[in-house]
């Protein structure tokens, strides 16, 4: 079965640079969630989208922005990168918000290293 695809899998950036992470949800999934997982920490929710509209916002810095496109893929844009942004960034997708039996399926993550 098709899974959530994230690209790139690894990314190395310098401080103050910009990074773009991409997420391709499972086919037919219309909801995307972004999480940040620092070393030795649990995943922290950043932001989510449903049907191309932002549905919820968590602890996402103002330097970050995200959007969901017409094909339901999502991009997380990170500007003015800081050392503390080094983390594993997960994308998860689910099918609709109308069904409460929904489950989030996670992608493999993008490991971002800021030097």
């Amino acid at each position, binding site marked *: 079965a098709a899974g959530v695809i994230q690209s790139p899998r690894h990314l190395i950036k310098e401080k103050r640079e910009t990074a773009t992470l991409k997420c391709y949800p499972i086919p037919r999934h219309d909801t995307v969630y972004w999480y940040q997982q620092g070393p030795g*920490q649990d995943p922290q929710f950043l932001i989510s989208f449903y049907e191309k509209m932002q549905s919820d916002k968590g602890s996402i810095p103002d330097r970050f922005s995200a959007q969901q496109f017409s094909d339901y893929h999502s991009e997380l844009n990170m500007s003015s990168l800081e050392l503390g942004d080094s983390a594993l960034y997960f994308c998860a997708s689910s099918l609709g918000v109308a069904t409460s039996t929904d*489950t989030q399926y996670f992608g493999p993550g993008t490991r971002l290293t800021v030097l």
Partner: protein
Amino acid sequence: AQTVTQSQPEMSVQEAETVTLSCTYDTSESDYYLFWYKQPPSRQMILVIRQEAYKQQNATENRFSVNFQKAAKSFSLKISDSQLGDAAMYFCAYVRYSGGYQKVTFGIGTKLQVIP
């Protein structure tokens, strides 16, 4: 706000033995879902098992089962016949729906070591 507590930072189990990972949560909601996710060294987050709060029957998935005690707000994961591939970080997650959207709260995780 909901909180999820995993009080065992690390656990170990002999191969083929049984181990139980604990998870407690705090909520005032009556309708919610609970999950266990597994994160092996590859860092991939893999769904292990889910439990709907309205169901009294404990969920099972092959060698994985839960002991869900709603009144006690406890959701432990039992792994039977442990295998080397079970070695991973295990996260307990609480999911509720707010305004039609999922809100997930993770515990800090329990690192499981499987001893050959």
